[in-house]
């Protein structure tokens, strides 16, 4: 009989359309950042659909935050690795 309600992916698209004027007035590099954020919202469409909230935008915001958080952790780990390596290099330098 076909779905009656919009799917979460459609809701993300609607939200993108609603922000299109906002996006137009952003600088190119900021537009790219915005696109990445909405892609994050769509990436978690399954969780958004499963939650089935009547106000989906806040669900999209949380999805964007999740991707941000993952990114932060990934960068932290990289920093730790680099720091350890630097420490290692400097101690080795002293030793030799």
């Amino acid at each position: 009989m076909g779905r009656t309600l919009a799917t979460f992916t459609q809701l993300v698209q609607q939200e993108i359309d609603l922000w299109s004027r906002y996006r137009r007035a952003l600088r190119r590099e900021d537009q790219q950042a915005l696109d990445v954020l909405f892609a994050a919202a769509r990436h978690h469409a399954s969780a958004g659909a499963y939650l089935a909230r009547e106000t989906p935008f806040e669900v999209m915001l949380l999805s964007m935050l999740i991707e941000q958080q993952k990114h932060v952790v990934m960068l932290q780990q990289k920093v730790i690795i680099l720091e350890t390596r630097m420490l290692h290099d400097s101690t080795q330098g002293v030793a030799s």
Partner: protein
Amino acid sequence: MAQVQQQAMELPFYTDDGSAVIEAPRHLLAALRRSAVSTDQPKGLVLLSGPPSVYRLGLCAAVDRALAGEPVLYLAGANVFDPFLVGRLARASRVAPAHVLQQIHVSRAFTCHQMVRLVTDCLPSALRTYEARCVILAGPLDTLYDQLVPEPEATRLFRAMAEALQHMAEQGIQLLCVTTLAPSESGGRSRFVAALRAQARRAIDLCEAEDGLWLQEEGGFEPRRWMIPRPLWNRL
């Protein structure tokens, strides 16, 4: 977010001569009430017809009644219902969306036999169950245009539905019938809209224009027009 929409709702509404502001309603829902698309006053059948945006307008009317604390029955014949619009309108009115959503009771019909059964049998008992007085029929004719159902049968079913609606209108039930115009392939069935119009106590036509949505009502002492400005509508 809610703040932005609240502001949007406060745009004024203009009459067709463009000058006089009709009583500057506080927001769209109030405008709808004023245009009697949604009304708590006169009972009976009101027909709202026009392009597919009528469905959104019909849902606004449902939300308006639900916000007023009334249970609403929503009969979906065209497979359209947008709970997210309900959510936005509720927030703009500073009411918990879930509360409004719980006040609206939906049933979908996917065939004309289901639609007619819904109106003739299920609706009267649902009105009692939910103690409701307000019904939105969204696309009651859509299923009747199905060419798999022969025209004489569709006509018979339409009559049964129209009769039941008439009966309920006489009982003081508020019935808002929201319908698009008949598709070009509908042949003799295109008469159904006209028949509903003849039966309705009020018939309001929706037209979309550059500047906004015009609601127009013939009959009465003089034709009346209202407008919903485009910027407001687009933000709905």
